[in-house]
């Protein structure tokens, strides 16, 4: 479903992604872990070209996004804004700081893109929005403004908003890092349900329990490269790399069954 090859990204002189390649199969839930500054968030943002990258390509469901390879010369060609916007419809992203539109109600937040971008009729879009709100457990909040919701509620609205575009791939960028611990559970539960329902997802998180329980595959990044990837049971119990062992040590010491 997702294929990233050789992505290189620098911020000025700081090379944040040093040639990252990642594949995600349809229906697979991949969790990316690693220390701060490892490039995890940048990697995610490159997928739907919220960040531009100097080298590499990204394809989703076989379609390139951001750059395509010119068949004649083999070099990258940047796609037009219209093509990029169309490709972005296939990908839903949920951010650490929710990023709801504060001047719109919850319902308007969710239907804005389906109506204006996809041309879905208002009645149909609103019906779907209410279904999604029920899915994330917020049916009674449709007419509220985001400012009146807790962080966990806003985040769940953000998930519903992303799902409203019927994406083939969902990206989650440390979506619980800004939440009070007591609100984290409700968001992770929503994500777990999505994974069970077969959504292809790439999740960047510090929540190791979630990674262990929900991931089909775990990817460990550091210094702009993927250091190790594998099945959760294997990564947590017997990591191949010393660095991963060290990183997971605190979690394993506390929670080893």
């Amino acid at each position, binding site marked *: 479903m997702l294929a990233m090859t050789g992505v290189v990204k620098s911020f000025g002189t700081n090379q944040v992604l040093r040639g990252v390649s990642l594949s995600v199969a349809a229906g697979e839930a991949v969790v990316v872990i690693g220390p701060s500054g490892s490039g995890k968030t940048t990697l995610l943002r490159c997928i*739907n070209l919220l960040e531009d990258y100097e080298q590499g390509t990204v394809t989703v469901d076989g379609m390139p996004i951001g750059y395509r390879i010119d068949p004649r010369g083999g070099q990258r060609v940047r796609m037009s*804004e219209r093509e990029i916007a169309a490709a*972005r419809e296939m990908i839903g992203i949920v951010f650490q700081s929710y990023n709801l539109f*504060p*001047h719109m109600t919850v319902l308007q937040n969710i239907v804005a893109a389906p109506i204006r971008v996809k041309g879905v009729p208002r009645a149909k879009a609103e019906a779907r929005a209410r279904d999604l709100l029920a899915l994330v457990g917020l049916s009674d909040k449709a007419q509220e403004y985001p400012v009146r919701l807790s962080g966990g509620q806003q985040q769940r609205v953000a998930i519903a908003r992303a799902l409203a575009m019927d994406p083939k791939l969902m990206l989650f960028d440390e979506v619980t890092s800004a939440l009070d611990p007591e609100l984290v559970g409700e968001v992770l539960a929503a994500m777990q349900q999505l994974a069970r329902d077969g959504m292809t997802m790439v999740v960047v998180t510090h929540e190791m329990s979630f990674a262990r329980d929900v991931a089909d595959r775990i990817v460990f990044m550091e210094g702009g490269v993927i250091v190790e990837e594998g099945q959760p049971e294997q990564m947590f119990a017997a990591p191949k790399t010393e660095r991963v062992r060290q990183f997971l040590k605190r979690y394993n010491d506390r929670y080893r069954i």
Partner: protein
Amino acid sequence: MMKTFAPLLHSYWYLFRGAGMTLLMAAASVVPATLLGGALALVHVFGRRTARSALQVYLFVVRGIPLLVLLTFVYYLLPLTGIDLPPFWGVVVVMSLYYAAFMSEVFRAGIESLPQAQWDAARSLGMQRHLLLRIIIFPQALRLAAPPFVSLCANLVKATSLVSIVGLWELTMASREVVERTLAPFQIFLGAALIYFCICYTMALYGRFLERRSLVGH
């Protein structure tokens, strides 16, 4: 008490007419100033480098020269250039151009103070630039810009008093005429001050109402 305030009580209606001219002048200037200010803000945020450099020069000139000097300068310049423009409209043009600069900065601040995250969220939903500007960025930017914008409008109303220096008639000029006739500057200018205050305070109250309303959803 009534006897000492007789001059004001006799001439307040004349002052009201002057205030009417003040409001007319201000209204005629606010509309082009706002439209131009909005356009300039878009140039400043989205325009190409040459356009933005030209804009910087314009802002620099406006911010560096007092409005009074500009008004007087244009007032004496116009007849020399042969442009046949009634003084009222000459003043309106100068004030529009002057305040457009400040308004453009207010609108620009509204746009630029929106977090990048709003752009990210809109783009990631597949919105293209025109759509996201129209439904995400501008509505929020205008809400943010409304209170300082109203404040600028109040400033503009007060600035109309400067045209009395070049002999144009409005509230301040009317007040000076009455003072010359009645030799009672204190009470006449007290009256004028009260009228200006009523106009500007009403605008300030509206600005505060807009400010409170803009907090909905922020």
